[in-house]
């Protein structure tokens, strides 16, 4: 099953490779991994999207906790949470595609952030599955380039990851 794991770690050089190295060394999947400093500049927050059986997810959480640089780990799937990912897509917008691309962008509540004679650059945010759905919905031949940030997640309501 797909799990979103959030963690706080020391904002130090090498911390990221300790986490990514752990996943490759133990053969765990990484669907996406995002990391950036938090409002406290000594801490970074990372969101890892992974998948595996309950036993594997339990091991992943334990192994992450074992890393000296990792301060706190939370499996967002243990409760209610919100997930968002940003995708920037460059699509063909010539006479053939222009109207359709504008329409699809509106349907997925995206925004056109750059325009040229032949293409649109569109930003869309949402859960990873919504972004997948957008890609599925438009003509593959129209896609020129995509870039995705990977998912970020946060607990709903009072569910807070803080030290």
């Amino acid at each position, binding site marked *: 099953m797909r799990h979103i794991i959030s963690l706080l770690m020391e904002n130090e*050089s090498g911390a990221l490779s300790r986490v990514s*190295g752990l996943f490759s060394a133990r053969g765990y999947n990484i669907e996406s991994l995002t990391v950036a400093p938090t409002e406290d500049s000594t801490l970074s927050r990372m969101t890892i999207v992974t998948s595996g059986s309950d036993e594997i997810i339990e091991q992943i959480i*334990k192994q992450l906790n*074992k890393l000296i640089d990792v301060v706190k780990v939370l499996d967002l799937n243990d409760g209610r949470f919100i997930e968002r990912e940003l995708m920037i897509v460059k699509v063909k917008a010539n006479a053939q595609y222009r109207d359709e691309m504008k329409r699809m962008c509106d349907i997925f509540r995206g925004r056109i952030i750059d325009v040229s004679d032949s293409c649109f650059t569109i930003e869309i945010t949402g859960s990873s599955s919504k972004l997948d759905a957008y890609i599925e919905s438009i003509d593959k031949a129209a896609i020129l380039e995509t870039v995705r940030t990977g998912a970020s997640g946060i607990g709903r309501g009072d569910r807070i990851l803080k030290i």
Partner: protein
Amino acid sequence: MSSNHISGAEIVIRCLHEEKVKFVFGYPGGAVLNIYDAVFQQNKFKHVLVRHEQAAVHAADAYSRSTGKVGVALVTSGPGATNAVTGIATAYMDSIPMVIISGQVPTYAIGQDAFQECDTVGITRPCVKHNFLVKDIKDIASTMKKAFYVASSGRPGPVLVDIPKDITAEKYEFNYPKSVHLRSYNPIVKGHSGQIKKALSLLLNAKRPMIYSGGGVVLGDASSQLTKFVRTIGSPITSTLMGLGGFPASDKQFLGMLGMHGTYEANMAMQECDVLLAVGARFDDRVIGNPEHFLSKPKTIIHIDIDPSSISKRVKIDIPIVGDVISVLAELNDLLSKEKTKQNPSLKHWFKDIDQWRSMNCLSFKNDKKLIKPQFVIQTLHKVTKGDAFITSDVGQHQMWAAQYYPFNKPRRWINSGGLGTMGVGLPYAMGTQLAHPDAQVACVTGEASIQMCIQELSTCKQFHLPIKIINLNNRYMGMVRQWQEFFYGNRYAESYMEALPDFVKLAESYGHVGMKIEKPSDVEPALKEAFSNKLKERLVFLDFITDQKENVFPMVPNGKGLSEMITAEDL
């Protein structure tokens, strides 16, 4: 600059003094010249110059294994650090507390592909508990403090500190922190009391209780608590390779080692028990074989371990107890002292089964008149040393024979590479052990293949007058490889025959030691007696025993099979 400023190199040395380090095992080189200059100008610890960095780390590792203190190694950048990697990985797999200091090229040269530069922190990352690259002289003291703290607390392990050359030359004041706090690292010590109570009640009410103890008991200095507990509840106990000595082997409750080359009774009892208490052990593949087969006989499993990630890793645990083994066992002993019935009434029946398995006599072997049996050499070694020597070993058949035929009654007497299985550790392990225990008998049980992997250390032994006795079980084969080829590869002995062997007697003599070649069974005991005699008390003796080439290690659980699916000597 104030007058109390000292160089970064001197700061490193002062940190080692603060940590009361007695021995540093190392090898100099460009990036650590400043540090070596500071080593030269102090006399609080002894520097042991090895002949290869791998041996420095192994020797520091054995110093730790045999004393419980943190071992320290010092190597230079680039090849110094990469040579150390095997030693570090070996210590990591067996959770040995160590601090490895490596030199690095100057900070301004990092990333420039400088001479003898490598990404030491990157290369060692997967095989250390933690590592640091110190980029500022102000951080040397606090980093060293953290390194010793992380290495020795929680589940111990090696910690590497990489120090660029330029900051060892700069000057700064020395201020060693009194304590250390890491917000991201708080090892759990005390086990959950509710779980501990549950565990005791399960053990006391079981029909077939069993205890399985591992290296964590030795590392956690919990052997007297374990012994007290096991003797009070009266249950059978087995031990992993790493746990030998954690419970006295001469005790009748002890069933011997379990696992791939464990005794018949230990493996059968593991399989047939209904309540199993695992203490400081990790259910690894060489110990329980196939986990599904292991669980095919239903049992309730209690697991005490300081590392939460060891719990339910290979086998689902019913009662996990995360904590320091010594503290959890002390709590179990406390609870037990308040119980009315301290021993389980079903034990009598359980021991009847066990005695039946014992009567198989699975470790029996036939001595030969002409050929020296390797098991006989180990038995005689046990007799001659009165069972009280420190035994180090390399990796292979000889290691298993040493584990099977030299019963250990005390912890920290059996020094070998369990997890990584590193050939070549035996001699450097004996060096670290002998330096830590100068008056003790130290024997290195090895084979003609393993010993050649760190043979250069005979020179270190000469320089430091280490009277190690090397027990070379020379069967002219990489014995364990040959055994697997015989059993599983149709007797095709691919590259496992050791051709062109040196004359070990002359080799030992050329290094200034005593060499003996023993070819007859009747010479085994006299040779060992002579080697351990007062006459040769100060000398390293290399005993080259020419043994039976065809001897195999039994019993054996083939790879991927279940514990009760052993092959015994009689099956073949």
